[in-house]
């Protein structure tokens, strides 16, 4: 009996300057396959369904257990991680495309460094005095930890930016992931001492004002981070900060 097969269609572009084309691959079915295994199968036998020899597909991947954030792509039109996208649960033929909101490098590989730049711009860190011994950290209630921990699980995959109508070439909007990180650092006891710096940045270009409250972000987050709650919380903080600054001049 011949092996059961299925079709994967991949949107290809060898270079950002080159024209887009699609390649169609016929792969051997096995139970529990994920998209990463499909891409490895293609790399081992880079021949299309119509018999053309092509280059293996370039893509980003690292941990393969949905915690590094690398392998986000559009799978059947939906932004998600390739490692946790199981072939058994996908409509066929499977369609793979790169994320569209980030500069393309090649095939399914995009450059998401803008997210890390935004984290820099929004000062997403706890400013410690130094790594020398300074005793224990601040005490924290379990309730606060339970609020912070889910936010700190953001893997910077970019899915929430991809799905956001306000993230586009005409806007600098940093996106929900970054806003949620601002919330995280503002709720930490030490981070809170510097909340105003982050809020000032959030009031600037590409900041929270650009959010249109479409609420798509929260639906595509692979880590189930309450992004819309974060947006609401930071919105409130920005508002209070603005009123306070207005009354006190500067702070």
């Amino acid at each position, binding site marked *: 009996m011949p092996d059961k097969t299925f079709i994967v269609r991949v949107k290809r572009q060898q270079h950002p300057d080159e024209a887009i084309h699609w390649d169609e691959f016929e792969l051997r079915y*096995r139970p*529990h396959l994920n998209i990463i295994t499909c891409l490895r199968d293609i790399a081992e036998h880079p021949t299309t369904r119509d018999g053309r020899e092509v280059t293996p597909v370039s893509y980003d991947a690292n941990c393969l257990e949905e915690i590094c954030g690398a392998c986000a792509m559009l799978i059947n039109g939906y932004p998600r991680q390739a490692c946790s996208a199981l072939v058994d649960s996908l409509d066929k033929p499977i369609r793979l495309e790169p994320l569209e909101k980030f500069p393309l490098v090649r095939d399914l590989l995009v450059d998401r460094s803008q997210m890390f730049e935004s984290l820099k711009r929004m000062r997403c860190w706890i400013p410690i005095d130094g790594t020398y011994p300074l005793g224990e950290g601040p005490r924290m209630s379990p309730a606060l930890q339970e609020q912070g921990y889910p936010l700190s699980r953001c893997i910077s995959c970019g899915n929430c930016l991809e799905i956001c109508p306000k993230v586009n070439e005409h806007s600098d909007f940093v996106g929900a992931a970054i806003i949620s990180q601002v919330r995280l650092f503002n709720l930490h006891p030490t981070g809170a001492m510097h909340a105003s710096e982050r809020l000032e940045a959030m009031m600037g270009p590409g900041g929270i004002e650009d959010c249109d409250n479409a609420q798509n972000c929260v639906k595509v987050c692979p880590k189930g981070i309450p992004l819309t709650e974060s947006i609401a919380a930071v919105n409130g903080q920005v508002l209070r900060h603005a009123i306070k600054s207005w009354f006190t001049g500067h702070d």
Partner: protein
Amino acid sequence: MKNPRVIIVGGGLAGLMAAIRVAESGVPCDLFSIVPVKRSHSVCAQGGINAAKNLKGEGDSIAKHFDDTIYGGDFLANQPLVEGMCEAAPAIIDLLDRMGVMFNRTPEGLLDFRRFGGTMYHRTAFAGATTGQQLLYALDEQVRRFESEGKIRKYEGWTFLSAVIDNGGVCRGVCAMDLKTMEVRTFRADASIFCTGGIGALFVRSTNSVVCTGSAQSALFQQGVYYANGEFIQVHPTAIPGEDKLRLMSESARGEGGRVWVPKQPGDKRPANSIPENERFYFLEEWYPKYANLVPRDVATRAIHKIVYEDKLGVGGEPAVYLDVTHLSREVLDRKLEGILEIYEKFVGVDPRKEPMKVFPAMHYTMGGLWVDNENQATNVPGIYAAGECDYQYHGANRLGANSLVSCIYGGILAGPASVRYARNLEKGSDATDESVFEAERVRQREANDRLLHQQGSENPITIWKELGDTMTENVTVIRYNDKMRQTLAKIDALEERYRHINLSDRTQWANQTLQFARELENMLILARVITLGAIARDETRGAHYKPDFPERDDANWLKTTKASYNSGKIKLEYEPVDVSLIPPRERKYTAAK
């Protein structure tokens, strides 16, 4: 020299910590990483980080952490730095806490601790079941802060190809390749620190990430850095089988009360939940009443192999055992283990809160690695330092769970300042090195690329890689026989020959991942040989290195460190004594309390 410059290769926990320490000392630092550092393999660490803070009123102490670590490592680790690590661990936790790591808390707002393998104490601080991710992010954020101040410069999306070593045998910088443009470039540095992680890819299927190929370690080995104790490979007892990856199910599941069992009746096909309690065999609890489900990993892994392959009691006749957390409270499952339960649910499609998980051992960690001295992470080549999983220093013949995160950070804490001291004391820095030294290395690497790009042949790198992984996994992991391992050496010979006939299906000069992988594969083959040779030579059983033909630890002949060196294509093994000056070796036996 006055204004030194340091290069760090690798942006996991060790690399980031080293970078922070270098930047703090006011020395500019270039940080190279294949992936954006936030995506490094440290994110995969789940269970926690050890430190004897004794916050549970159990009388835990640094001495006990030290003894557990040495005993767990079957006395193969040099002891002084391990003691240093255990001493530093509580302050490391405090530092991470100050950096904002969302560690789990007690009602009083203090750090919570849980139990882990190979100890009787609650010594493991944790952030849910994604502790590595949380720690990596904390360091990533600090590095980003230094980056915004211009003190650290990142080269993300670059892969290390080789060190630039001058005629006097001193490292003067590195040669690296931009993975987008495929440009090969050299960079000057007065000291270079390598924090390039694990080697899981040698086994193809492991718990490691894609970038854990050991390629950098192998390249350095070929340039004269010793590789030590390569034969000590940790196979983790509990992972989810998978074709692309064996996904770890953290020891913390057992630390929080999870139990390992199989049906007593061979080949029992009933669903797990319908098998009554008295028909379940909790073999770890029975065989190791004191440590029970928390025996060290090598012990648990061998027990699972025995139950599956000798006793034929694998679940449903397959190579699998149950890891059962269904009896744990909802609170423990949600607050302390959510991260791993989510992985199981997503990748297997079964809710582990309701049904026991099916798991099997998987290659997980290398105790061996680049040889470093007993003071400050310096290798034998002046100007080259190593820290993290890629060094061999801290775990002897078997690593205890939750000791890796602390050893990575401790290694980085030492290596950063040590590299700065070394660089400042240099009479002549790398800027005095003639450009021709750099150009020669660049040309050598460029030519290696060109050879691969123009080579004609019929071999595919992925096929060769898979065959390497199969033979390594079969013969050089849990149970080792010399004749089988000699077959593996012959297989590596054959694969190296076939490697010379690789046909790259991609000959472009833009984001060519096939070329990158082919370069890594060549290095993997050499490192696989180092590991196998070391394992064949060591005729004893110690920690993770188990030979049924030599079932006892043999201190008279083998209480020594394997040091592999490389000279014109030949691998030589030599040995040096282990520093056991602090805890005299004694029998390691987990059937009773220590």
